[in-house]
């Protein structure tokens, strides 16, 4: 499990780097092609926008994996290192797993509808299903990390309890 998540995180990092680079290069090229070559390119807008949807969603997973999402951390910090602190965090991860499942279900239906209808983007003629499929993929990755975190918190909580009972 640990090795799988580490591997996924490394993969995400590479992929996100490429997507960020694509965003920057497309937008810069859009301006340069218009002002320097006087012939505005049409592809950059869609490339940048579709890359951004993937960055937003997969990036959300990456941030979750590193526990860097914005939160009001007053209560978790007060309870940090205690059994109930671990149980609180465990509940959070259960809720994230729930959200992941909802995203898989909802995203899959939206993506399939687009694949079946053959909805194409206006410039690049990409099937929009390839854009929307980011949602179920994100859901699946959220579930994967959530399970990993739940197990981790459960073990820490149990270990703490044992130490207490030992006294």
């Amino acid at each position, binding site marked *: 499990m640990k090795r799988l998540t580490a591997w996924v995180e490394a993969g995400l*990092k590479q992929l996100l780097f490429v997507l*960020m680079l694509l965003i920057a290069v497309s*937008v810069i090229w859009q301006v340069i092609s218009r002002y320097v070559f006087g012939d505005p390119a049409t592809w950059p807008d869609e490339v940048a926008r579709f890359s951004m*949807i993937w960055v937003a969603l997969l*990036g959300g997973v990456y941030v979750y994996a590193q526990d860097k999402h914005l939160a009001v951390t007053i209560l978790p910090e007060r309870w940090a290192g205690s059994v109930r602190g671990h149980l609180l965090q465990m509940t*959070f991860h259960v809720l994230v797993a729930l959200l992941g499942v909802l995203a898989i279900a909802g*995203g899959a239906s*939206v993506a399939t509808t687009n694949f079946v209808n053959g909805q194409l983007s206006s410039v690049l003629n990409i099937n929009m299903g390839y854009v*929307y499929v980011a949602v179920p993929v994100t859901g699946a990755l959220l579930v994967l990390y959530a399970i990993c975190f739940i197990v981790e918190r459960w073990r820490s909580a149990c270990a703490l309890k044992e130490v207490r009972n030992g006294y």
Partner: protein
Amino acid sequence: MAIETWTALTLFGIFFALLFVGFPVAFGVALSSIAAMIVYADFDTALNVAGQGLATGVEGTAFLAIPLFVIAGNIMNTGSIAKRLIDFTKIVAAPLPGPLAHCNIIASTLFGALAGIASAAAIAVGGTIFPHAKREKYEPEFMAAVNAAAAPAGLLIPPSGSLILFSLYSGGTSIAALFVAGYLPGMLWGLSCIVPALYFTIKNKYPREKVTSWSYALRATWNALPSLGLIVILIGGIVTGAFTATEAAGMAVFFSFLLSFAYRELKLSEIPRIFIDSVVPSAICLFLVACSGIMGWVLNYASIPEMISQVILDASSNKVILLLLINLMLLVVGTFLDLTPALIIFTPMLMPVFAQLGMHPVHVGIMMVFNLCIGLITPPVGTLLFVSCSIADIPFQRIIPRVLPMVFALIAALALVTFVPEISLFVPRQLGLIQ
């Protein structure tokens, strides 16, 4: 009760409950919106809205400016752009007592005019100026407070990621108008930091420096000229309509690369690191935007903003009292919630109220950003206070007494911005961007 009321209660009940126990804001927005959608319609519709909302929430070219500003800010942080700006500000600040503190404030404001995100300014300027201030025996708590308090000025002075978010969530307020509208309030922000800082440095008898020589002034200006020129290109481009805000952000990336290469401060091999460092701050914001996509559907379906507007307007018919109450509420929200989520969540909800009160959307945008920026430096959870303390290497509690005078000055300034619309509207009106 009507179904819309139940929907709104589910949305807010779950959202605030999750928020205060410490659940990540983005996930809380998504879950509470899905729950509200189940109440309003049924489970299948809610699933569909969740799938649709997550993907379409970040649709739109204007959001691209956000990751691009983060990248540009990171590039500028690696090089000497901050140092050049600080040297430049010494020309003005040298005759004041404790010039480094005032340099910090003015340089943060200028850096904000390049970077568009507040933490970039706090890190770049603070990181450069603190070692210097330590050698000259400035109190580190005071310097950390000054650095934190001055950084949000950059979110009012264009280009500004926050004003772009406001433009998108308020239903398309002109970005060019918002940008130029931010100049005077941004300077007012800087002034609200300088006045308490000046009082402190005079009271504690900080030494002045010699007035800078002409040759120093010329050299410092020459060194800062490329960076200052970049500001003119970017904002000039946006105001005249030559660039969109997104294209300007792209150009900020491009030119800051060129500058860093020209100054020989950036190696090609560092580019992957800069982009990877930019992923987390960009994704924090963009994922929130994606999740708020679901909320957008719910708000629309159940006409929640109109409902809130009705409730608030029923509470009082006095515009002054309402504005005071709304500002007070936003100040409290901003204390707990970071600027970005607060802006994304509350802008669409409050716009109908402001429209009813007859306020110009540009004025509303500046007021909201100004207000929520104060939250970034209000104890106990101000983001910028943490950033600044970690650079200055001091414990968090010790910055609080030093930053409070500036927070009070800024709240007074907020009252001015709220009740004197001309502070926000004068410049865009002069440039013909609004009527």
